[in-house]
Structure formats: structure tokens, C-alpha cells
């Protein structure tokens, strides 16, 4: 697979790519990525690609390397071997704050909102790399997606409910206007009705043109909204297919969708 021409596509152009639209440009590509925590070989050669406008999901058990993969993409960790290409450029060594400017935004696992700052301040921090006029525009976009955050704008992040905090974490990640949004376990610990809501919003964000890489324990839901998926096991991709294909796969059903 050759890197697509680095035509820095405006995220607005690409409509959500349905199914396996091979024509869409590959915006992010991990090529044989090996990442270590000290001497622990966490990612053992991961190859994943994301096309413009897709929702792609990574599923797998705890410790399979899903979070590590996201951290490697967003620059919080660097691969010891292999490369990460974003819009055709090698970004394996770039710092997280530079990658935010490039257009990769990461809503980390466990929400990690600034609990002692207000909702509004949290969102403004998300727009740290942007100009004031752009921040204002992005704020209204986030408030449109999450009217709940608007109601609570002056409340401390830490006083929000779990679902609201998750909305805030996603909203904050959106404030940098990313081309690619990395979501780590957005449904973790939420009531089923909230899970539905979060997934609907993820689809909406995607429909507005943001490419999404979604890590989820809730594989069923994730496969329902994704176009494609990768199954990770002990730091390796063991299966890559369309979301429909994975949902129909016997092994996947047994291991991750709770069917015996």
C-alpha cells in the first residue's frame, strides 16, 4: 500500500464512507508497529489503516494492546520499530501536542477531564491550539452535539455524572477540530441508555466528516456503527475485516460478543 498523495483533505469533503470503499484516501496508517513499556513488548507488529471518513474499531480483550495502539498514534508513546503515517507523512516521532495541531485528537481512557476546571474551561483547553475565533465556533458545535454540556458550562468537571464526563471528554477532544478522533472506551461504566446515546453521537461526529478510531469493550455496539474492525490479541492483529464480517465471524462471536 503506497501512501496516498498528501492532499490535506478538508474533513468536510469526505462523506462517511460506507462499507469497504477502497477509493477513499488512507489518512492514517500504522505499519508493523512495535511499542514497548520498558522491556514489555506491548505491540508486536500492528498494521492498521484508516480511510478518510471511516469509523474503524479495535476490539480485543484486556491487555491486547488497544489503548497502547491509540497512545502510539497520538504520540504519548513512540514505536520502537515500525512507522505511523498521517496524511502521508511519518509522524512516529512527533510529540503529542504537535499531533494535535496536525489533526489527531485523543480522548484518553478513563475520561481524564480536568475535574477542578469548569466544563467551559475544559472545552477551551481542548481548543488550546486554536485561535479565539475558531474556539468560539467549535464551542457552539460541541454544545450543539452535547446540549447537556451547555447546561452545565459553569459547573466543575468533577461534579458531572459519568455520562456527562464522557461527553465532556469527547467534546474536549473535538475542540481541536481533528481530522482523526481516537476514542478509548467511550462507553466504559455507563448505563445502557447512555451507551446508546454516546454511540449515536459518535455516528453524528463521523457524519460531520471526522474519521474515528474507536476502541471498545462493547464489541457488539462498536461493530454496529463501524465500517471495519481489527481484532487484537496480545499485541498482534489476528483478524481484520469489515464490521459486518467480524460480527458474523464464529470466533469473534464466541470470544467478544458473549455467545457460547
Amino acid at each position, binding site marked *: 500500500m503506497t501512501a496516498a498523495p498528501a492532499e490535506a483533505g478538508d474533513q468536510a469533503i469526505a462523506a462517511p464512507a460506507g462499507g469497504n470503499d477502497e477509493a477513499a484516501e488512507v489518512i492514517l496508517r500504522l505499519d508493523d508497529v512495535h511499542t514497548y513499556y520498558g522491556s514489555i513488548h506491548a505491540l508486536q507488529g500492528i498494521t492498521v489503516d484508516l480511510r478518510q471518513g471511516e469509523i474503524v474499531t479495535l476490539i480485543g480483550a484486556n491487555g491486547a494492546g488497544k489503548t497502547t495502539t491509540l497512545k502510539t498514534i497520538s504520540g504519548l508513546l513512540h514505536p520502537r520499530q515500525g512507522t505511523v503515517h498521517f496524511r502521508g507523512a511519518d509522524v512516529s516521532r512527533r510529540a503529542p501536542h504537535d499531533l494535535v495541531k496536525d489533526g489527531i485528537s485523543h480522548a484518553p481512557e478513563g475520561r481524564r477531564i*480536568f475535574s477542578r*476546571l469548569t466544563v467551559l474551561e475544559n472545552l477551551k483547553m481542548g481548543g488550546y491550539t486554536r485561535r479565539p475565533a475558531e474556539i468560539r465556533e467549535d464551542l457552539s458545535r460541541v454544545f450543539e452535539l452535547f446540549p447537556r454540556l451547555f447546561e452545565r*458550562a459553569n459547573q466543575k468537571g468533577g461534579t458531572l455524572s459519568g455520562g456527562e464526563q464522557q461527553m465532556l471528554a469527547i467534546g474536549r477532544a473535538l475542540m*481541536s477540530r481533528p481530522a482523526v478522533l481516537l476514542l478509548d472506551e467511550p462507553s466504559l461504566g455507563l448505563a445502557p441508555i447512555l451507551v446508546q446515546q454516546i454511540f449515536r453521537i459518535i455516528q453524528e461526529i463521523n457524519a460531520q466528516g471526522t474519521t474515528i478510531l474507536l476502541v471498545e469493550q462493547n464489541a457488539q455496539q462498536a461493530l454496529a456503527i463501524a465500517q471495519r474492525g481489527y481484532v487484537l490479541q496480545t499485541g498482534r492483529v489476528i483478524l481484520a475485516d469489515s464490521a459486518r464480517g467480524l460480527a458474523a465471524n464464529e470466533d469473534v462471536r464466541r470470544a467478544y460478543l458473549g455467545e457460547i
Partner: protein
Amino acid sequence: MKAQNRRNAALAALVIGAALIAIGYVVGLPPVVFVGALFTAGCAALLQGEHRSLTIVAGMLTATALLPVIVLIQPFSTFSSQNLWIDGFSIAGIFVLLALGLNIVVGLSGLLDLGYAAFYAIGSYTFAFAASSFTGLDFPFWPMLIAGAISAAVFGILLGAPTLRLRGDYLAIVTLGFGEIVPIVILNSSKYTLGPNGIGGISRPEIFGFEFPIQNPWPFYLAMVGIVTITMILIYRLQDSRLGRAWMAIREDELAAASSGVNTVTTKLLAFALGASTAGLAGVFAASKLSVVTPNLFRFDVSFTVLAMVVLGGMGNIWGVAIGAFVLYTIQSVILKQLNQFFAAADVPFLSSIDFIEYQFLLYGIALVAMMLLRPEGLFPSIRRKRELHVDDAGEGPTTTADAMGAAPQ
């Protein structure tokens, strides 16, 4: 419209107050000074925190005018003469500067620095080298204020660059070590620093060709007030800036701050450098004020005292930290001494045999523990921190700021 009127009234009050204060001092009528101070205090109240730089000027003017008059009143006037009080206030100002600087590092950015006195030492020795009979150089004071700040900032960056990747306790240990190393190096390189004797004969500031006199404490007092006022305004601006928000984000969650696009390395380095430069400023002033610097002035107890000032005053709140530093220094240098004499004179059985100055750190320790238990936000907390620590009564309800941002949904 209404805000405009209030601002004009505040400005008028400030001008009238300043004029009255000046007249009061020139003709030597304390009541006139009092009335003037009422006007400047009124100015600060009218502004209601809307125009912070002006509020700081008005507040500092009120304090500057009132302090020398208050010490003429009974209980204070028995402690020492007005001149001695004023002399003490300018040294208290040094600690206010130190606390304001440490507040950037500890209060805003959440980086625990236990060796802060090292930067104070570097500022002091910078001026001692640049303007004393020992080196024979005589650089002027005012530019050296900036130079001292810069040299301390450089050392802040040198220390910070390799160590700021450490977190919490580990950073505290490294800074503690640095705080020990600097005075020891000064002590042992006696060829350049005269070791334990210190460098004496340091120049005093000049203004329009007139050197600050030794006998009269007023020039130092006023110069200190000016420096503190400017520093406070600058720090307020910083706190409200994009950089200030990045500091708070790092204090809250460094990983999330990085994911939001904050360059955590340079942001933390800036906190260290700016904190250090404030200490450098204080150091230059102290060297000139005391005219002698010795390694003893910069030992761990200074770092600890300043940290106690920041915590007691209310971490993160500039006025709180400034007042905390001022009050604590005054208690330490004046009240404790007086307590000794007072109890000795009154011949109180147990208390008369205690040297309160010796127990100063015990008292600090008790005060800090009591503080953490009873009022963790400090004596004068920032509104933010108060809300943080008393979540039950945290304000809810609809937003006003968001409305102002014009960011309503739809």
C-alpha cells in the same frame, strides 16, 4: 454604561485618595492619610475585580499608606519605632515576592519545589558580584534587577530541563537537593564568594543620581512596593493568559493536557523559569537592602518558610499568597520577639521560659497541620479553590459565561 460609570468613579476615588495620602504624609497628618486610604480602598471595592491591574494598584496603595500609620498606634508602636517597622516591611516585601514566585510553580502548575531558596541565592549573588567592593564592579541597581531575574531564570531552566519529567515526590526530592547544593557550593568556593563570611559592601540603589540613604528606610520601602505591585500585575496577567490555563491543566492532569495540545515540557519549564526569575528579583533587592549576602541566608528554612507562606495564604490566589507572606513574616520577625519580652516582663510562669523564635518552625508546623485539617484552601483562598474543596456547596445552575461566548446551541 453602568460599568463605565463605576469605573470612572473608581478612578476618581483613586486620584483623590492618592492626593490625600500624599498631602497627609507631606504635612504629617495621619488622619488625612487615613481618609485618603479610605478612598483608595473604595476604589478597589468599586472595581469589584473587574479591572485587576487597577485593583492591585488601589489595594497596594491603600496598604502602603496605612501600614506606616498603623504602626504609630498603641500596641504596635510599643514594639518598635516607625522606622524599624518600615525597614521590616521592605524585608517582608522580599518574602512577598518569593511567595508570589513560588506560587507560580506550586500553586498554579502543581510542581512541588522544595529548593526555591536556591534561585533567591542566585539572584542575590548575581548582584553581589556585579556591584560590591569585593569585585570592585559597580553596575547600577535597576538594570541588575532584570539581570538577576534572568540569571535565576537561566538556572531554573538548567535545573528544570533534565528534571521536570519527574513527577510529584521525585521532583520534590531533586529540587530539595538543588536547594542544598547551591548554598554549599557558595560556602565552599570561598575564593570567589568569601565562603561563610559572605560578600559585603554591596551597593545601594540610586535614583536620579541620589543613593538610597542608610538611615532612612522609606526609599527601600517605596521601591519595594513598586516592585511588588508590578510583579503582582504581571502574574495576574499570566494567570489569566493561555499559559496560565495550560499551567492549571498540567496541575490537573498532565496526560490530558498533552492530549489537548499543550507542550508540557516547555510549559513546565516556563513555570520554573518565571518562578525562579521572581526569586532572582527578590534576591537582587535583598542583597542591596541588606548590603551583605552570606550562604546562611539561603538555607532550607527559607524554602520551607516561603512554601508555608504559599500554603497558608491560599495556593493559587495572588492576594492570598501576598497577604499570607506578609503576615507570616511580620509574625515571625516582630510578634514572636515581642512575645518573648511580653511573657518575660509579665513573668507568666511557664510561657516566660519559652523562646518563641526558637520554636518558630514548630509553630509553622502546627499552623500548617491545623490549616490542612480545618481550612485546606488557605486563609485567603481563590474562589476557584474554595469551590474545589467544598464540593457540596458548589454552585450549579445555568451558565452566564457561555451565553457571553455567544455559543448557545442552535
